[in-house]
């Protein structure tokens, strides 16, 4: 450094060539660093391009054209940005923007999309899949019909079944021609294995045409009521009749036994006139139905009100109690007169260091009414229903959350307190202010300037604190008067989880609609709170 400074000093020196040499050296240095950067850049981009290429090949095999497009455009853009000379801001922003797009924007957008569909149990795939699933489950084996030994024969492009009946009679047929007897079949141990003019398929060839062979249905006779012969494995065949008939042009399914016609009326399933649906159905966009249902469904509306109230109480009280306990302890341990502060501080942080869901489980065990540590050891066998009484369960949740949450507040308060200059307190004391007044009028407002955003974040976190509720009480005790499985300590997110994901009927559409509603609530509260926080900042 000193050399550089002296070199810059504009004073004649006898070592002119050496100055030029130094300048040349600097340029060379700069150039060599540039080469290193360039190398890293090229290698990194090379790795990236190679990965992108692999991804494209994999996607190509699956014909995911849209994703391929995205990968190509993204990779091209990244190469253009980092190989170019200017565009410095873009070089810094790109990684963040990519993460943002993948992990935030895409997830949000997809959730919103699902919120407008009927995705859930019974509406899980596409219409074609639903039709094929319905048709295959509608097949019923003809009662008391035997197992037929079957050989798959090919004639041109047509697949035929060569059937040996249990009584030894040999028949052949294909999708158009019903089974008819033949007498010149080649036999092998009582089973017909070949026929002149046809090629018998080997097992490998059968596997290669798996779909066509399992779909092959050979009518047993001209009368459809006799059923059709199908083979699931290419070696044995069974007679089936189908209970459903699909008319693709009309978009209807007809139950052949009862004659009921099920129509595709746009609701995502074949529906009869009386509203009965054939499941599986398929996914369709249903507009705002899920949102309307979330807010008006009778079975949800009742519990929704008190669950919402409790969610707010839980989030606000949790933030308030943890903040004030954390602040109190921070002030206490910030006092120089306190001995063993470091030891206590470590002790304080411990709850913060354990994974919260684990702690919640441990607390759930300790609060068990008959066998828990608290009742058995601390309270000498008192049967306090910590988690099974509706009110006490709420108190327990707040206590546990206080235990889990105060160390965080303690940490941030300690930090914030130490950033307040001592002079302020001294000046106030000299002016005759009492400690409480100093705290209330000077320290707290200054603290809130830096802590208010954290309190808002903490509110948002507790508003959706699924872990704690799920692990500690699982929403219980159950409200047995409610028509849906909701408990007295359920918050919105855990109620959504129960409504949408427990039991055998999932409703991802409804769950997504709820998620968006919760998101809107939290967003509005955060915006209002941040506005208020700005007022605090004006204090400075």
């Amino acid at each position, binding site marked *: 450094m000193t050399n550089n400074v002296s070199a810059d000093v504009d004073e004649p020196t006898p070592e002119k060539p050496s100055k030029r040499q130094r300048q040349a050296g600097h340029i060379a240095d700069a150039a060599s*660093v540039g080469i290193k950067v360039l190398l*890293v850049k090229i290698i*990194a981009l090379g790795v*990236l391009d190679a*990965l*992108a290429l692999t*991804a494209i090949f*994999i996607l190509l*095999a699956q014909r*995911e054209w849209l*994703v391929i497009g995205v*990968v190509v455009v*993204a990779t091209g853009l990244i190469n253009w940005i*980092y190989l170019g000379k200017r565009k410095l801001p873009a*070089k*810094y922003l*790109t*990684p963040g923007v*990519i993460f943002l797009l993948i992990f935030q924007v895409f997830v949000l957008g997809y959730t919103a999309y699902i919120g407008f569909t009927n995705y859930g*149990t019974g509406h*899980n*795939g*596409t219409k074609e*899949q639903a039709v*094929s*699933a*319905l048709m*295959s*489950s509608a097949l*019923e084996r003809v009662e008391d019909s035997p*197992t037929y030994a079957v050989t798959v024969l090919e004639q041109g492009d047509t697949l035929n079944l060569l059937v040996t009946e249990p009584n030894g009679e040999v028949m052949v047929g294909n999708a158009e021609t019903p089974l008819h007897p033949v007498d010149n079949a080649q036999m092998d141990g009582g089973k017909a294995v070949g026929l002149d003019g046809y090629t018998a398929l080997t*097992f*490998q060839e059968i*596997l*290669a045409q*798996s779909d066509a*062979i399992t779909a092959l249905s050979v009518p047993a006779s001209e009368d459809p009521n006799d059923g059709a012969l199908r083979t*699931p*494995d290419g*070696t*044995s065949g*069974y007679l089936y009749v189908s209970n459903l008939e699909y008319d693709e042009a009309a978009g209807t399914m007809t139950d052949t036994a009862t004659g009921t016609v099920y129509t595709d009326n746009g609701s995502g399933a074949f529906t009869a006139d009386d509203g009965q649906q054939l*499941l*599986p159905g398929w996914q369709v966009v249903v507009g705002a139905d899920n949102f309307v249902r979330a807010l008006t469904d009778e*079975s949800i509306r009742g519990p929704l009100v008190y669950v919402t109230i409790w969610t707010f109480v839980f989030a606000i009280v949790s933030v308030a109690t943890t903040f004030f306990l954390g602040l109190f302890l921070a002030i206490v341990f910030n006092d120089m007169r306190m001995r063993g502060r470091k030891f206590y501080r470590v002790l304080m942080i411990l709850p913060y260091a354990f994974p919260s869901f684990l702690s919640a489980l441990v607390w759930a065990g300790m609060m*068990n*009414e*008959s*066998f828990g540590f608290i009742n058995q050891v601390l309270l000498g066998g008192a049967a306090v229903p910590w988690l*099974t009484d509706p009110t006490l369960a709420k108190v327990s949740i707040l206590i546990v959350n206080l235990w889990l949450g105060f160390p965080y507040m303690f940490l941030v308060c300690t930090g914030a307190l130490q950033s307040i200059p001592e002079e302020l307190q001294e000046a106030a004391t000299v002016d005759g202010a009492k400690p409480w007044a100093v705290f209330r009028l000077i320290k707290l407002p200054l603290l809130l300037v830096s802590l208010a955003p954290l309190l808002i974040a903490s509110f948002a976190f507790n508003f959706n604190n699924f872990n704690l509720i799920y692990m500690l009480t699982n929403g*219980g*005790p*159950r409200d*047995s008067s409610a*028509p849906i*499985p909701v408990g007295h300590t359920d918050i919105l997110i855990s109620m959504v989880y129960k409504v949408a994901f*427990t*039991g*055998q*009927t999932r409703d991802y559409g409804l769950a997504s609609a709820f998620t968006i509603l919760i998101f809107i609530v939290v967003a509005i509260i955060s915006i209002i709170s941040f506005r208020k926080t700005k007022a605090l900042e004006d204090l400075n």
Partner: protein
Amino acid sequence: MMVKKKGLLAAGAVAVVATLALAGCASGGSDAPAGDKPSASSAGTLTVWVDAERVDALKGAAASYTEKTGVEVKLVSKDNNTIKDDFIQQVPTGKGPDITMGAHDWAGELSTNGVVAPLELGDSAANYLPIAIDAATYEGSVYLLPYAVENIAVLRNADLIPEPAANFDDMIAKGKAAGLEQPFVVEQGAEGNPYHLYPFQTGFGAPVFGTNDKGYDATDLQIGSAGGEQFATWLGAQGKNGTGVFNTDIDGEIAKQAFLDGKAAFWLTGPWNVGAAIDGGINVAIDTVPSPTGEVASPFAGVKGFYLSAESKNKVAANDFLVNYIGTEEVQLELFKAGNVLPALKAAAETASADPIIAGFAAVGAQAVPMPAIPAMGAVWQYWGIAEADVINGADPVATWQKLAADVQAAINK
């Protein structure tokens, strides 16, 4: 300045690469279990999802099948808790497996979602235990190739109580005579546990659903019958305000500990807990469930097996592999060794019953009824346990039971 910029650039580049790698993994990852597109040259691949404990047991069958047919069998180890949801979500995208391991009571949900195809066992159906075939049948079609039948039974500490109990009251009396405060334990919990209480309910002649020729009939809800109310009354008398035999504070862990400590001599549980009891040095005997009435107390039977994906591109091989390979005594015994649960194939079940514990569970299983696989059962589960827990904790039994029946009916009609 230069150094800082270089560092940042490098970090940026690493981040970008990581992102793309993640994106690549995401697509590559979901692609990995797919591999089900039969290429023209080879006979193709079967992807089978197996729960982690049984992967090794299937390796032999997979290898021998590959050897015989040239079809590669790819076993993918999955977490048992997520296998069903993953299957339902992945099959419609065409990326799911060809075959998945599962429990029989998933059949309704899987079929409603259109992700499973029916199987045809043909004449081999007669080779399986009748209860396995009953359980594997949903709406008249067989959806599951069964490999194991699982049910609960009473584990008895034979050192404390040498003789099996004749009935429920006898069991409690025997335990009290041996000086035990809580002779009998069964897993409950704050939300009850109807699976473990079901044998007593059947003792009062109150099944959940009636049956027709296709299996359980969702339109015939039987739970609220007179027998159900009698059961509720009896349950209330054995609860908090009665004898205290049933206690919702006793969960699985507490019940296990009580039995291992010798504080309880009878434990109503499944084969999955036998290992722990034997390891704990308990002389375990397996008894049928002591009935509170004179009738047989039938537990639920759960049947485990393999489902065929509706979107499998290789259905012929999948059918062949399931019916002709998994359905052999050899493979069923391999699977039995991995899980110690009674095999579903008759011949294998007989071999496995040489073990007195397995024979004990098999004897109880002979009285068992398949757990309903109909989706309407979901509506029952969500109210059933909580109603039982309420009754145990002192709620009016008959009124609670009537509300249960009404809630379930309303949920089914919805």
